[in-house]
């Protein structure tokens, strides 16, 4: 363990912390905060603080509303911004039932459960995400727009890129918070950015993704911009993905690496991939959980559409980057940043482990551009597609026992109820596209 309770109290005092945010993530991947004054810190560290769980979407019913927040001491961090008015610190928490047992509906508890299953097989999961997002302008009323800063020529001074400036600030803030940022760059689309973090164990990375989103939103706002992790905010331009690099380690060694094999990939790596590919359609419901997610998964734009793997081309669901040795890994390309990272990593790991345990062989790699193939060619190669919308994905999820087990029945029930409703609302709405298409035509 990194910190003891006493050390945390000392650090908080030294930094002049006035408030502590106790953070947890709801079913839909939204970060929730309970802010407490520093005088309550010791009580919080002992896991004695309660909150009303019935106020959180998809958590519990009113009859079981008093839930405990049990902080993970290693996640103590002081936010680098707003130093003038007394610093703010945070602790990421697990949600526990009144009787002290871990609450099944808490996505972080759930990921820990799946990680434990992996540990029983002797594996730890390492993850390195690449998160994309857009920086848009806020309008005069402070509302987000879908206009990006760099196309807006509202000012005839030097063409400074607001986004570059904001991104540099974001990276610096992340580094201040102990992140190791591997790369950060401007993406394909105007106003789009990508930040990649160094790989770490799955729980730390899921926490890091939540922190990352918070930092990006906060810093963007300080720059008069709005950060959006919406998967496909603009038609006709690339969407935002969250490519998820994964590997399994056993005894601190990467078990995806097999130097004796021609391609350097172990059977474990192939089977893991086999598991991901077999369960991919159900996985999508969790890793691509919004109506909008499926507008990103279309041909072109380097987003995956087909269930295949490759060592080279980026039209496949799974790509195996060229690096070997300790860096041997697979890159799953469909997840997008609207997902709940705790649930996403849980389903990816569980599907991969199902492949490893049941020795599911993946199909042969496809090293051609699948976008350019005809449907007949794809059929001959046995390449099928990802779900084309949220309803299809939810349908596949309902039939996939392994992926359902990965999130547990409690979360599954809550998740599916909310998501079916989301789909229905979308279905029933009359969209601007329809008016454009039909209003004058008929």
């Amino acid at each position: 363990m990194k910190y003891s309770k006493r050390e945390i109290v000392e650090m908080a005092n030294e930094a002049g912390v006035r408030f502590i945010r106790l953070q947890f993530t709801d079913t839909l991947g939204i970060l929730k905060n309970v802010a407490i004054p520093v005088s309550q810190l010791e009580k919080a560290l002992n896991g004695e603080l309660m909150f009303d769980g019935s106020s959180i979407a998809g958590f519990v019913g009113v009859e079981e509303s008093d839930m405990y927040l049990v902080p993970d001491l290693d996640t103590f961090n002081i936010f680098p911004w707003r130093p003038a008015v007394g610093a703010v610190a945070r602790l990421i928490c697990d949600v526990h039932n009144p009787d002290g047992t871990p609450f099944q509906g808490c996505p972080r508890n759930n990921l820990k459960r799946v990680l434990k299953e992996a540990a029983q097989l002797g594996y730890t999961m390492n993850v390195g995400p690449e998160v994309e997002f857009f920086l848009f302008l806020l309008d005069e009323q402070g509302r987000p727009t879908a206009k990006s800063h760099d196309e807006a020529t509202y000012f005839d001074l030097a063409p400074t890129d607001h986004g570059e400036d904001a991104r540099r600030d974001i990276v610096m803030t992340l580094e201040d918070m102990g992140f190791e940022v591997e790369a950060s760059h401007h993406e394909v689309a105007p106003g789009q950015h990508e930040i990649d973090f160094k790989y770490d164990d799955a729980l730390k990375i899921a926490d890091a993704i939540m922190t990352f989103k918070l930092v990006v939103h906060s810093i963007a706002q300080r720059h008069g911009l709005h950060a959006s992790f919406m998967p496909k905010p603009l038609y006709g331009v690339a969407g935002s993905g969250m490519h998820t690099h994964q590997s399994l380690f056993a005894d601190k060694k990467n078990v995806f690496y097999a130097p004796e094999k021609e391609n350097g990939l172990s059977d474990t790596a192939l089977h893991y991939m086999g598991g991901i590919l077999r369960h991919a359609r159900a996985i999508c419901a969790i890793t691509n959980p919004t109506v909008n997610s499926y507008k990103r998964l279309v041909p072109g734009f380097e987003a995956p559409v087909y269930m295949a793997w490759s060592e080279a081309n980026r039209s496949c669901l799974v790509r195996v980057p060229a690096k070997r040795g300790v860096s041997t890994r697979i890159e799953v390309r469909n997840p997008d940043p609207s997902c709940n990272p705790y649930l996403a990593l849980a389903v990816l790991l569980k599907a991969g482990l199902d492949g490893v345990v049941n020795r599911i062989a993946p199909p042969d790699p496809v090293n051609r551009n699948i976008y350019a193939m005809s449907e007949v060619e794809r059929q001959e190669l046995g390449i099928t597609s990802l779900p084309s919308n949220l309803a299809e994905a939810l349908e596949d999820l309902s039939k996939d026992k392994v992926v359902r087990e990965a999130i547990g029945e409690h979360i599954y029930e809550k998740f599916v109820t909310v998501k079916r409703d989301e789909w229905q609302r979308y279905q029933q709405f009359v969209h601007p596209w329809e008016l454009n298409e039909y209003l004058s035509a008929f």
Partner: protein
Amino acid sequence: MPRIKVMVGDSADTSRRNLKDILGRLGYQVVADATSVPDLLRKTRMILPNLVVLDTNLTGGNALEAARIVEEDDLSSVLLLVSSLDHPEIRDFHYCLKPFSEGSLIAMIDAALLYRKRVRALRKELNKVREALDSRKVVEKAKGILMRLLDTDEEQAYRLMQKQSMNRGIPMKDIANAIILAHEVGRDKDILKGE
């Protein structure tokens, strides 16, 4: 003396125009004006004016929060124009209560600029002291390591590091860090034996 670059933030068209006129007449260079909080934040970061004169009527977000961000990120001095002191947070900033005379506006602007100049000077000094203290800490630590390893006294250990520093043209602090790192790597060797 170079002209002082001022940015104006005000959501009401008439008062923004008036404010720009007054500031221009008083000899300030009004380099830009912002009509909302996001607009103000974007332009301030781009232009880095010497002073932001900000009416708390600014819409599109919290005007005081915007003022705080400009100050925290050290982008510019801030002077608030306020109609009342109802909000206690206003007193965290330089402010001017409306209506004001041109004379008092000049005085407030001078005070805000002077304040930032002094804070910056102090901050620079503080950083220097901090750096010296950090350097002292690692040098002390490295000295301790050398004393134990080479069985020398404090003065000799210091002298050894000083010599390395002079011969190689590397600051003492870097020499000290290198010694600490080498020492830590040496300790890790024992971990390897365990594998």
